[in-house]
């Protein structure tokens, strides 16, 4: 049995007769494999990122956001006040109704988020994102308690001034002291720290750009009583009145998400004719994203397939040229004891070595493309191991498929004719 290493070494030696021509022939396969590897890296990276962003909202959750109705701004009511004013968005009673009467709902949590300048007793004053929310926030976001406790229903009901710190917020606010039972100045009011929580999945908080772990949590009701529901409009002039920025509504299970969504939009359609809300269904986004990804993958595979096909035809071409140029060598090998199958295998291995080598270089090029895209286009990329295996396997397979005919031609060479030709 011929040794694989030896066989490939011989194939390389044979191919070395026409280095440039052979190299050019392998370019097609090289680019084909490079595009396979880099496209997979980009699509896999994009998939991971967008999916993780969607999953961070929770696939059994529905999120309802308060939004300013399109094309409206706070307007002055000339009879009563002169300051422009607008009320919109979800009301506390909407959420209460959903929680109490919708059968598909497991839990809900209203959310209000805002950045505040926070001060500790040590006189630190740092801008920290704050979420005003309810007890079930912990469960719907799959956050866990590290120390102390989370917000309790009574905290809101009794307007207690207590707060809970996310793991990262502890680090920014209390570097050297034990935060538990410490006092914290939030929006001009003192709150007492009662617990520390951690979101292991490092999720981004709904209604915020920061991680859950970065936040300080206070009871929603306390926030509404102390700070009120009215605040200056963020862009432009006037005041806006919003009770809840967003509500996270957790369905009983993934299967209940779509029925719940239908009931929810029906209910909001009647109670909020001004369309001052927006329903986000992470599960639907996920499904949509997955099917977009599938399309992308199909299109990319088609492109890679075509370049590999063209590359394969190039290989076939060069191998045919090789065979007709080396007829004399083939004849001599036959004279020295090679049977037809030996000749067939020799040329097949040469073609496979050629494309395999092209494939290896292509994989390297694919890595380079992925790296470049990652560094300069700031796109996330992931190179799965199977894509490397696939790239190499496909390139060797291209050599085998497209090398078969030339190898057959070589095996069919009549040794006498070949040796007679000068």
């Amino acid at each position, binding site marked *: 049995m011929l040794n694989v290493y030896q066989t490939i070494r011989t194939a390389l030696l044979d191919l070395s007769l026409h280095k440039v021509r052979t190299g050019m022939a392998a370019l097609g396969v090289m680019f084909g494999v490079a595009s396979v590897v880099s496209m997979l890296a980009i699509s896999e990276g994009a998939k991971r990122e967008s999916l993780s962003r969607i999953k961070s909202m929770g696939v059994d959750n529905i999120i309802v956001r308060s939004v300013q109705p399109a094309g409206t701004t706070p307007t002055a009511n000339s009879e009563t006040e002169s300051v422009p004013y607008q009320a919109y968005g979800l009301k506390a009673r909407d959420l209460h109704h959903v929680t109490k009467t919708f059968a598909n709902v497991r839990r809900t949590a209203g959310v209000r988020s805002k950045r505040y300048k926070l001060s500790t007793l040590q006189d630190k004053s740092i801008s920290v994102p704050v979420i005003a929310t309810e007890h079930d926030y912990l469960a719907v976001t799959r956050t866990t308690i590290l120390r102390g406790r989370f917000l309790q229903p009574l905290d809101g009901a009794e307007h207690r001034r207590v707060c809970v710190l996310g793991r990262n917020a502890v680090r920014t606010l209390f570097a050297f002291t034990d935060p538990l039972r410490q006092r914290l100045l939030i929006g001009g009011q003192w709150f007492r720290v009662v617990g520390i929580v951690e979101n292991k999945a490092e999720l981004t908080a709904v209604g915020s750009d920061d991680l859950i772990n970065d936040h300080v949590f206070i009871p929603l009701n306390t926030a509404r009583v102390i700070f009120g529901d009215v605040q200056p409009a963020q862009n432009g002039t006037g005041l806006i009145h919003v009770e809840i920025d967003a509500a996270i509504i957790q369905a009983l299970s993934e299967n209940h998400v779509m029925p719940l969504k239908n009931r929810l939009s029906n209910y909001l359609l009647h109670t909020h004719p001004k369309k001052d809300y927006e329903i986000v269904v992470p599960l639907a986004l996920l499904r949509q994203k997955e099917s977009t990804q599938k399309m992308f993958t199909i299109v990319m595979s088609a492109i890679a397939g075509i370049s590999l096909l063209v590359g394969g035809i190039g290989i076939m071409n060069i191998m045919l040229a090789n065979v007709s140029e080396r007829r004399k060598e083939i004849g001599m090998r036959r004279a020295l*004891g090679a049977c037809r199958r030996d000749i067939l295998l020799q040329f097949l291995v040469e073609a496979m070595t050629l494309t395999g080598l092209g494939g290896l270089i292509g994989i390297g090029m694919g890595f380079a493309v992925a790296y470049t895209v990652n560094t300069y286009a700031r796109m996330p990329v992931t190179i799965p191991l199977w894509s490397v295996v696939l790239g190499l396997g496909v390139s060797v397979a291209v050599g085998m498929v497209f090398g078969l005919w030339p190898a057959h031609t070589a095996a069919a060479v009549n040794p006498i004719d070949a*040796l007679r030709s000068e």
Partner: protein
Amino acid sequence: MPSPIVELRNIHKSYLIGPRRLEVLKGVSLTIHRGDYVAIMGPSGSGKSSLLNILGLLDVLDAGQYMLDGEDVSRLEDVELARHRNTKIGFVFQTFNLFPQYDVLGNIEVPMVYHSRPRHERPDRARELAERVGLGQRFDHKPNQLSGGEMQRTAIARALANDPQIILADEPTGNLDEKTGKGILTIFDELVDNGRTVIFVTHAPEYRKHVKRVMTIHDGMLLC
């Protein structure tokens, strides 16, 4: 009397050229014994190469019988023919037909690759053969770095790779000057002395006295 190593009985060979059939060998019969030293002579186009190709199992005969070393090889499968060419016959050509991509040792190793000789033995065997034909200083030369005589020595060493009983050579000195040709003949002499059978085609009359037997072929027929 030693047993015949080659026995041809009434061999016919013809080629189709367009619609016409050209008879190249018209009933050749011959017997060659182990240790024979044979020169085949005859005018150009008389069928010397055709006969040698049939002896070397490179070409198939149309009619007749070929007994090689006691075995009927007239109608064998490709794999069987290849095995015989590989182990029983060593072929040497006028134009050397070396592999340009391999060096001297690499060329000599080729027949061993098609034989089941263990791989680690090949370089030593190739070196030994190269030394035997006087190429001790040229192991790593590629064919284009060799003189004509050195190329033919390499080709002979390659033909001897699997220690065949018969050496067939088609005008082995045809491309060499007289002195170099003599050197090649000297190698053949040694092979015959060692019990091998050497059959070669030549146009040079001075080799008539050199060999044990001369066969003259004329228009596809053997004149003995």
